[in-house]
């Protein structure tokens, strides 16, 4: 036996020992590091689009195209989400039948807190989104839950986003293996190809932001949730984050999940976390 073989054997057994020591969940080499992921994610976009101001990414396709941006700025004088916003403000202030209001369910009375959602609930061991929290609030007060994609939910989240405008996303990942797993799972969902077109979320929103998809301009994945909920001209109405995920899946001919399915909650967690530091700009308008 040569010295080299001994070395090899030695390192092999060391590796085996290391494997045995590592937790079964992740091996040392690919440990989840959300902070590093977020930094890499943001830097990718900052380098890809050096002329786009960092805070401008939250304006989606309008940050990618001057002409569209001008049209949008004109539209913002008379934003199409204004009706939903007013309705949401009214709904938020209207008490439930038991006399309580939404404000009783949320820290700071629900005002200016949108940037903290989704958060990881250590009791439940799952990600809790704002939409989910709103419906749980309704059910806790004896009201029927709202549809996750439709008008009322979009109006409520529009109002809550509006009270948080300009505040930077501040998503925390607690020191809990389940939270890291949720983040990792969201990341996996985002990068996994699926459906008849074999597209992942990233195929459009990481690989091709600024490119045209038919007449539309693709939005960058960075800051894509900051403007939610949105009024889409294509829908001629408002849509929530749930609605956006579902339509994204069906447009790539994949099978959409149920609104607020675990994967959707995790992908929302991932996308919000990597946008940490970018301001909330919701409610938004999109073509």
């Amino acid at each position, binding site marked *: 036996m040569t010295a080299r073989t001994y070395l090899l054997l030695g390192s092999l057994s060391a590796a085996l020992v290391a494997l045995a020591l590592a937790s079964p969940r992740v091996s040392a080499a690919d440990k989840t590091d959300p902070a590093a992921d977020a930094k890499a994610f943001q830097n990718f976009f900052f380098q890809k689009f050096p002329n786009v101001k960092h805070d401008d990414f939250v304006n989606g396709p309008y940050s990618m195209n001057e002409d569209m941006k001008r049209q949008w700025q004109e539209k913002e*004088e*008379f934003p*199409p989400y204004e009706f939903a916003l007013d309705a949401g403000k009214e709904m938020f202030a209207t008490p439930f039948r038991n006399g309580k209001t939404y404000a009783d369910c949320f820290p700071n009375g629900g005002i200016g807190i949108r940037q903290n959602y989704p958060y990881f609930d250590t009791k439940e061991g799952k990600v809790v989104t704002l939409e989910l929290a709103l419906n749980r609030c309704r059910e806790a007060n004896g009201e029927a839950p709202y549809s996750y994609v439709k008008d009322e939910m979009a109006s409520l989240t529009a109002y809550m986003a509006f009270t948080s405008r300009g505040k930077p996303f501040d998503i925390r990942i607690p020191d809990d293996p389940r939270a890291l797993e949720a983040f990792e799972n969201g990341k996996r969902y985002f990068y996994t190809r699926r459906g008849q077109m074999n597209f992942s979320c990233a195929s459009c929103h990481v690989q091709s932001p600024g490119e045209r998809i038919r007449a539309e301009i693709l939005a960058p994945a960075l800051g894509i949730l900051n403007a939610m909920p949105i009024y889409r001209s294509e829908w001629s*109405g408002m849509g929530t984050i749930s609605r956006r995920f579902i339509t994204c899946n069906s447009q790539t001919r994949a099978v959409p999940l149920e609104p607020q399915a675990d994967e959707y909650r995790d992908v929302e967690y991932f996308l919000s976390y990597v946008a940490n530091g970018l301001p909330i700009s919701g409610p938004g308008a999109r073509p």
Partner: protein
Amino acid sequence: MASSIRVRATSNGDLTEVQTLIQHPMDTGLVKDAKGELIPAHYIQELRFAWNGKDVFVANWGTAVSKDPYVKFSFKGAQKGDELKISWTDNKGASDETTAKIA
């Protein structure tokens, strides 16, 4: 319920530019709902802008106008501070009106 009409009228001394957004379903009568039933036609038939009691813009609409219509036009002769009255009636007899000060 807040008014269904949003309006912004600004004068630059000569021209007054009026922008309006109206909340209305503008159903054509050709679309089916989730149950497959036709949604009956429901659309604004007449939209009127009156300045000092005089019509400056009247639109007779049918089903071809989109949901939540947006209208923008300008006219001459108005002063800052004048009142502009906007009203619409639809084919079901519903109507709404609002007044705006020209800024």
